[in-house]
């Protein structure tokens, strides 16, 4: 009853203040535009746009940042589908499927499906959280060091399998190279300098944003621009929104992916980046034989699975951020920074010190979700028209954005060099048939895996392996799942290929 009263109070507060609506709409618009620009990411949008909230009141600032978060997550899908450059690693499954559809002249419908799935995903995430906040938090808190290590490892493994379906081992090699990149810098436990070759620039490690921009932005420019007949996106937009029947057909995968996105997204640190790949993988396994054949070549159901999970984890990632003060992902960390800027102390006492704030944020997410849907529908046609311009015109114009994007995160030119090298390496890896998504994901998850493995081993030193496997059942299940993922990739998929 107390919760209901708080929800009512927050609803009244929002209804009475038009500035909150204006801030939310502005945030969503800026977020979509930012995310849609190839080479600029959600994290960067969140980080840079915090500066604009300095002069705003607490509630207006929170509403603005929620709008930016929701808008930029979807905006990333626009550049992923139409230019083959994702804004974040979570948008990679959408990119794989959406770009294939866009090249067939179905970019408008691919984006329309992605928007509808995003809208639905946000709803599933928010409703599940409001209804099951304690349960989701309890589940998320079962992930301790050992489980976090296994989750990170599994995320990389599954991403490798999914992005290199015919030869999963190449996806894993790509992921493992990403792990090696992530180890560069001062080690988090002892401060020992690893693989820095004596360069103090490398002591801070290699950031994932310049790597992402290089691998997907610059490598795409190097790949596409010199082609005599670069791939073209047909400018005929055609139908944009999927029919009601189609949406009904995807209710089951949507709900499944929404639950996956919310729960995995709520796991601090590793969750949000793994969620969309996990939902994408589960979706392929559960799809009909005919639909499974389309996976990787342009499947609407695959887009639904990835986008629902991707957006459900927006709500999910907010939970550990608010309740524990541990951000679910980099974008949630930016929200945390914006809250701290407004003297909001997050953590277990948030309900005591700021009663109703959690509900305010979830209502804000719902409003942002509506604005996102409306704005996105309005933007599909102009975006398809814009990105159907010749690649020989678009790609050179993306280059300064890539340089500025890589530089702007830390205002450090070293990141531009990292972007350049990543782009060249990405081009070579593509030539040799290695997928790039596992590499980026591993650069993000590597430090989490490294730190948590060593912490877990330190705890296990006294307990013994058998006791660990028996006592930590969630960890044991995850370990079996990781082993199965490798077994499936090496043996079963090979057998299926041989028999076909």
């Amino acid at each position, binding site marked *: 009853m107390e919760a209901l009263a708080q929800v009512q109070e927050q609803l009244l507060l929002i209804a009475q203040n038009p500035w909150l609506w204006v801030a939310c709409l502005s945030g969503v618009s800026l977020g979509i535009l930012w995310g849609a620009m190839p080479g600029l990411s959600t994290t960067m949008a969140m980080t840079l746009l915090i500066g604009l909230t300095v002069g705003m009141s607490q509630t207006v600032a929170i509403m603005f940042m929620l709008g930016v978060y929701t808008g930029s997550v979807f905006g990333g899908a626009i550049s992923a589908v139409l230019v083959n450059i994702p804004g974040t690693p979570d948008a990679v499954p959408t990119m794989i499927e959406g770009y294939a559809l866009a090249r067939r002249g179905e970019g408008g419908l691919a984006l329309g499906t992605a928007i509808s799935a995003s809208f639905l995903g946000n709803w599933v995430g928010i409703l599940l959280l409001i209804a099951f906040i304690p349960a989701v938090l309890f589940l998320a808190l079962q992930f301790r060091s050992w489980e976090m290590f296994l989750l990170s490892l599994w995320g990389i493994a599954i991403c490798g399998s999914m992005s290199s379906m015919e030869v999963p081992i190449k996806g894993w090699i790509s992921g493992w190279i990403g792990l090696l990149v992530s180890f560069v810098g001062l080690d988090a436990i002892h401060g020992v300098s690893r693989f820095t070759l004596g360069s103090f620039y490398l002591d801070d490690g290699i950031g994932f944003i310049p790597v992402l921009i290089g691998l997907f932005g610059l490598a795409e420019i190097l790949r596409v621009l010199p082609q005599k007949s670069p791939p073209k996106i047909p400018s005929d937009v055609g139908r944009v929104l999927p029919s009601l029947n189609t949406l009904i057909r995807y209710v089951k995968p949507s709900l499944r992916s929404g639950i996956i996105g919310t729960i995995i997204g709520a796991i601090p640190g590793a969750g949000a980046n793994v969620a969309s790949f996990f939902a994408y993988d589960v979706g392929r396994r559960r799809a009909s034989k005919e639909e499974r054949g389309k996976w990787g070549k342009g499947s609407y159901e695959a887009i639904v699975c990835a986008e629902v999970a991707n957006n459900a984890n927006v709500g999910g990632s907010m939970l550990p951020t608010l309740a524990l003060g541990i951000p679910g992902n980099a974008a949630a960390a930016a929200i945390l920074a914006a809250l701290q800027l407004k003297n909001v102390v997050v953590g277990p006492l948030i309900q005591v010190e700021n009663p109703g704030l959690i509900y305010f944020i979830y209502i804000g997410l719902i409003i942002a979700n509506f604005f996102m849907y409306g704005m996105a529908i309005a933007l599909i046609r102009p975006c398809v028209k814009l990105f159907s311009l010749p690649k020989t015109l678009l790609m050179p114009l993306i280059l300064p954005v890539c340089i500025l994007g890589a530089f702007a995160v830390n205002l450090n030119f070293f990141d531009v060099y990292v972007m350049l090298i990543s782009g060249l390496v990405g081009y070579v890896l593509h*030539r040799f048939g290695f997928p790039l998504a596992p590499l980026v994901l591993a650069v993000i998850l590597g430090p989490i895996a490294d730190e948590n493995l060593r912490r877990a*081993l330190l705890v296990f030193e006294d307990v013994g392996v058998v006791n660990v496997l028996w006592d930590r059942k969630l960890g044991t299940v995850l370990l079996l799942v990781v082993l199965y993922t490798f077994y499936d990739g090496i043996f079963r998929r090979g057998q299926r290929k041989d028999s076909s």
Partner: protein
Amino acid sequence: MSTEKVPQPLGEEELEGRPTPNKDLASAAVVVVVAVLTLVFSLRLDVPGSFYTAPGLLPFITGFTLLLMALMLGARAIRAGAKMNVAGLLGISSRMIKGFWSAKNWRRPMLTALVVTYVLLVAFINFELRFPTPLFELQISSYEVISVIMVTWLLRTFWKASLLRCFLTTLITVEALAFVFRYGFGILMPETF
């Protein structure tokens, strides 16, 4: 949901990214070298505390498993018909280098050279021009000047529109971008300071 579409023939994009057994074998050889180097460097790292918290622990495990994966990839490539000899591997490398630099395929090396030059110019040429206006102080950084020149060059080479059109398109895009970043977000333009 999807309407019946005529499947498109494979474009340059798909063909050049298409792996072959020989390419797989060559990449497996490179990955073996990377894995062995990782093993060596991770063993040389200091171990300040317990073995379980050794900074080189996960890098060593990663290097070892990477080595296994590379060997598996190599074995798979040989089973698929790749030639396992040094001359064969060198042949792939030399064919790739020749293909990259051939006179027929001048566009890619030129693009790569232009991109690298662009980044190096932004890194090494630093200046800022300031023009006071009645409303605000107009700033033009070396990044904007270099970007306008280099992107105009790229557009002229690949888009093949008139020089004026390429220049104006670049100028508007770069200045709009710089304006938003500089005045909207207070971000400095790229330079090495």
